[in-house]
Each structure stands twice: as structure tokens, then as C-alpha cells.
């Protein structure tokens, strides 16, 4: 009853969260990813690129690249256009220009696990293997579907669009300047190499960690959440190799092997059983992703 009342009050006062129901405009650009795929870091990178006069912090990020699932419809409506908006939504036909970040799901699940501990969605001692099973089934209480559903919903619908840019988190870690330049091109920004380098330096993981320590109490996403588990993760890839059990890796690769391979994520299994091909072929992303830098 109390939650219903709050919902109604939020509706009446325009404080309901944007989520899938805010007004989208044709000149919007959306920064989309499944949660824990490097979206916040990318927000900082892009924010520091489009607003070079003031460093991006957790205190001003929502003004520069607002979060559609953390801010109200009313707030989003008043953001100056053209807007760059952050979203974790699965395919939404209203999004015309999309930067989509994908990350190895074997790493995503670990970051997701810590994130849900931080938000007390799961207990600290929740065993990892069953969590991985739930993650694969898309049953981790987010409402955004499974990792594969999320990725497939965007890639399959938008893979031929000139307004769709696919970024791999791992490639961003390896060559952030080059990947950020792709973003600049999509946004129509002619950025110098100095501007790109400044944006990357300002958005370093170390810098973000320092800011989180002093600003997390004021940032809409971390306000009131426990502090002993940081929001900013390790900013590395491949952690799953030592932290996930063989069984969990096997389970994930059995479920999503073809999609992972399409995205250039090597599978570990030497003698894998025949993997079922995606119902709709997603095309060959490897040349476009140019993953040789991994």
C-alpha cells in the first residue's frame, strides 16, 4: 500500500523514474549496456569529451549524461537538447542513435554479483555458482532480461544502422583513445588527440575511485548504499578465469557460446558439444570490432 501511494505521488508530482517511459526525442543519443558492463566509465569518458571545461565527477555526471533509470521523467524532460542519456534498457524502438557497450559475460556476472551485494539484493554469503545459474536465466531481479537477451535485442535490430556503435569494454581498456574517437565520430565531434587524451586521463579508474570515496554519499546511484563494497570495480578483464568455477564457465558458454564467439570472446572448452546457432544470424562483428588489441 505504501509503495502504491509513493508510486501515485511520484506520478502526480512528475518524480517517476524515466525508465522506459520518458519522452524520447529524435536527436537523443543513448549510451546503453547491460548493467556492470563499463557504462559509468564510458559516461565519464564521453562526458569529459563533450564538456572539456569542467572535469566530470559523480556530482555533475547526471547533468551531462543523465541516467534514465535513476532520474525522474520531469528532470529528463528539462535536460538541454541534444541529450546524451544513459540507459540499461533492452531494445527500445524509440532510441535512434545508440552507443552499445558489451562486456564478456563471465566478467559481467562477477561485477553484477558484487553490485547486488552492495545493494543488499543478495546476502554477502550468497553462493556464486547458483548466482551464475540465475544470471544466465535472467533471474537476478533487474527487469532487464538476461545478458544474452539484452545484447541480442540490440545487435539483431540495429546491426545495419549507421547510428549504432558497438563498443567492447575490453577494447576500451586496451585502447581507450581509439575507442573514444569512434564515439566522437558518431557524435559528430572533431576531437583532437589532446582532447581525447585529456578525457581518458580524467576518467581513469584511479581518479574515479578517489572521487567515489568522497562523493558517493551524494551521487543518486550510490546514496545511502553500503560503502565497504565500491561501485567502481577493478576495471580489468579476465577476472573470471580465477574466480568462476569450471562448472559455471561451462554453464555460461553452453548457454551463450555462439553469441560470445560472435563478439570475439574466446570459449574455454576444448571439445565443446555442438552449439545451437542463433535463430537470427548476427553477422560478422569481428572485423568491425577489430579485437586484435585484446
Amino acid at each position, binding site marked *: 500500500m505504501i509503495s*502504491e*501511494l509513493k*508510486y*501515485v*505521488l511520484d*506520478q*502526480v*508530482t*512528475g518524480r517517476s523514474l524515466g525508465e*522506459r*517511459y520518458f519522452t524520447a526525442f529524435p536527436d537523443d543519443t543513448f549510451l546503453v549496456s547491460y548493467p556492470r558492463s563499463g557504462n559509468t566509465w564510458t559516461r565519464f569518458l564521453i562526458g569529459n569529451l563533450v564538456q572539456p571545461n569542467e572535469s566530470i565527477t559523480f556530482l555533475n555526471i547526471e547533468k551531462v549524461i543523465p541516467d534514465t533509470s535513476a532520474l525522474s521523467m520531469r528532470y529528463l524532460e528539462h535536460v538541454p537538447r541534444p541529450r546524451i542519456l544513459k540507459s540499461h534498457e*533492452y*531494445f*527500445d*524502438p*524509440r532510441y*535512434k542513435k545508440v552507443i552499445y557497450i558489451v562486456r564478456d559475460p563471465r566478467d559481467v556476472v562477477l561485477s553484477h554479483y558484487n553490485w547486488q551485494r552492495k545493494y543488499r539484493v543478495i546476502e554477502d554469503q550468497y553462493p556464486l555458482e547458483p548466482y551464475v545459474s540465475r544470471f544466465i536465466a*535472467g533471474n537476478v531481479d533487474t*527487469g*532487464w*532480461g*538476461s545478458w*544474452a*537477451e539484452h545484447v*541480442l*535485442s540490440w*545487435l*539483431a*535490430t540495429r*546491426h*545495419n544502422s549507421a547510428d549504432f556503435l558497438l563498443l567492447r569494454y575490453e577494447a576500451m581498456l586496451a585502447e581507450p583513445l581509439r575507442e573514444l574517437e569512434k564515439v566522437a565520430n558518431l557524435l559528430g565531434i572533431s576531437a583532437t588527440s589532446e582532447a581525447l587524451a585529456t578525457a581518458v586521463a580524467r576518467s581513469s579508474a584511479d581518479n574515479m575511485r578517489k572521487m567515489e570515496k568522497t562523493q558517493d554519499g551524494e551521487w543518486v546511484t550510490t546514496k545511502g548504499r553500503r560503502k565497504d563494497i565500491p561501485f567502481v570495480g577493478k576495471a580489468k578483464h579476465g577476472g573470471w578465469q580465477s574466480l568462476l568455477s569450471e562448472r559455471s564457465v561451462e554453464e555460461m558458454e553452453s548457454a551463450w557460446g555462439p553469441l560470445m564467439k560472435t563478439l570475439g570472446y574466446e570459449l574455454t572448452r576444448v571439445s565443446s558439444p555442438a552449439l*545451437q546457432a*542463433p*535463430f*537470427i*544470424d*548476427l*553477422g560478422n562483428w569481428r572485423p568491425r570490432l577489430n579485437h586484435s588489441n585484446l
Partner: protein
Amino acid sequence: MSLVHRLAFGVKHMLELDIAAHNLVTYPDDTFIVSYPQSGTDWSTPLIANLLQPERSLKPRDLERLIPAVNGHTRGFFKAMPRPRVIADQGTFNPQYTNVIYIVRDPRDVVVSTYNVACGSTRTGRPFPILDFVNGFVRESRSTVGTWGDNVTSWLATRGNTPRFLLLRYEDLFFETVRELGKVARFLGIHVSSHRLADAVNWSSSGDPKTAQEKHKRKNGPRVSPAAPGLWRSKLPEAAVTEIELAWAPLMAKLGYNLSIPQVVESGAVDAAF
């Protein structure tokens, strides 16, 4: 939205009288019948509803009770609906939907049907220029349903390989109604004899559709007869067909819709994306 509208919404929400739409609370045993608008569901939904209510013939109000549209009823209505529920929707992929029957129809016929509805709804009664209309149909994504390609792709890519997803083609439903309806019955876990299946489709598949429709109208209220597949051949100019096929050739080919324009096939559009 004005303050008055927001207040009205608030009151409706408290009384669960607001339209369910995105606020629908889903259950794992729900089945959703999803299709892009104008994909023949006016005809196919009553067919499926016949399976759900075998004991007596279907009346229009039964349809609203048996397979209500998610955008057409209140939250209170859906809350009171007996489970397992069967619900109709037209939206793009929704991860909350566990069991989905997706009905796809040749986009060239979908656009003809959409065009007819649009022309019928104009105040002047004057038709739109067909080429402009087809251009908008292909390029303009509608807010919740997307384009035909968006809608179909979003479901097939995410659920096409999963056991709780049943893909039906309108054209197969039209020509092989009993067989296709049998698939629906199995998917819904309804044990039904072939005799009963034939009964369920009898009114739509035998004799002159107009006579059957009239007969049914007298007995059971208004009923829609299905449009024969392939109407686009006589209704769409070649330029419109080309535009649709160039936009969605690989997807159409995947779904078994033969492409008619040689330049689409020769251009390699079919191979380019798949």
C-alpha cells in the same frame, strides 16, 4: 501531462483502474500472444480463444475475457483474471514474458492492411499516396511496436531458439489452420482431439468466408474473416514492394517469404546481413 491528468491517473491507479500496459504484473504461467499490428490477429485470436473455451461457442465479450489485450484493460482486470492467463500484446521484446506465441505476417500484406485502415480513418476519406505511406512504414519506428522489422527481429533474436517460444506464420494459419492450431494447443498444454480442433476452425475455414461470417454473426455476434495471403501482389506498386524487400530481405527470406524483385535478390541483400 497536466496536473489534472496526473491526479486522475493517481486516483485510477489507487483503484487499479489504470490501463495495465507496462504496469502489468506478469506470472511465469502467463502466455502472451504477440504480433505486429495488422498481422491478422482479429481473425487468429478468436481461433485460439476457441481452444480455451471448448464447451460453448464464442461471443465477442468472451474474447475480451479469454485473451485480453494488455493495452486494453485495467490492472484490476488482469489481477482478477484466472490463471494461467493468455494475454495479447503488440510490443517489441519484453523479457518479462516467459511464454510467447509470436504470429508473423508477410510485411507486404501487413502494409496493405495498415494502409487500408489508415485510409479508412481519414476525415476526408481520400487515400494517402501509397509510396509515401510505405516509406513511412519501413522507416518510421512507432513508439512501442517499432517497425515491422524491429518487432519481429527483437523477438526472434532473443527467443527464437527457446522452448517457450512458438513462431506461427499468419499464412500457415490461413492455409493449414487445423495443423497450426494444434501447435498452439500443445504449447498451451491443452489436450484436444483433431475433431475438436476442426470444430474450432470450422466457421472460418469452410465454405464461402462471407457466408460463414454472416452465419456466425447471426449466431454469435460479429466475426472477422481472414484476408487471403498475397493481396499485396495486386495492391502494391513495384516501387513499394522493392522498398520493403530491400529493407527486410534477409528477415523475410528467413521467414520463408519469397522475394519478388530480382534486384533485391541480385543485390545480395539477402546474404549481406546473414
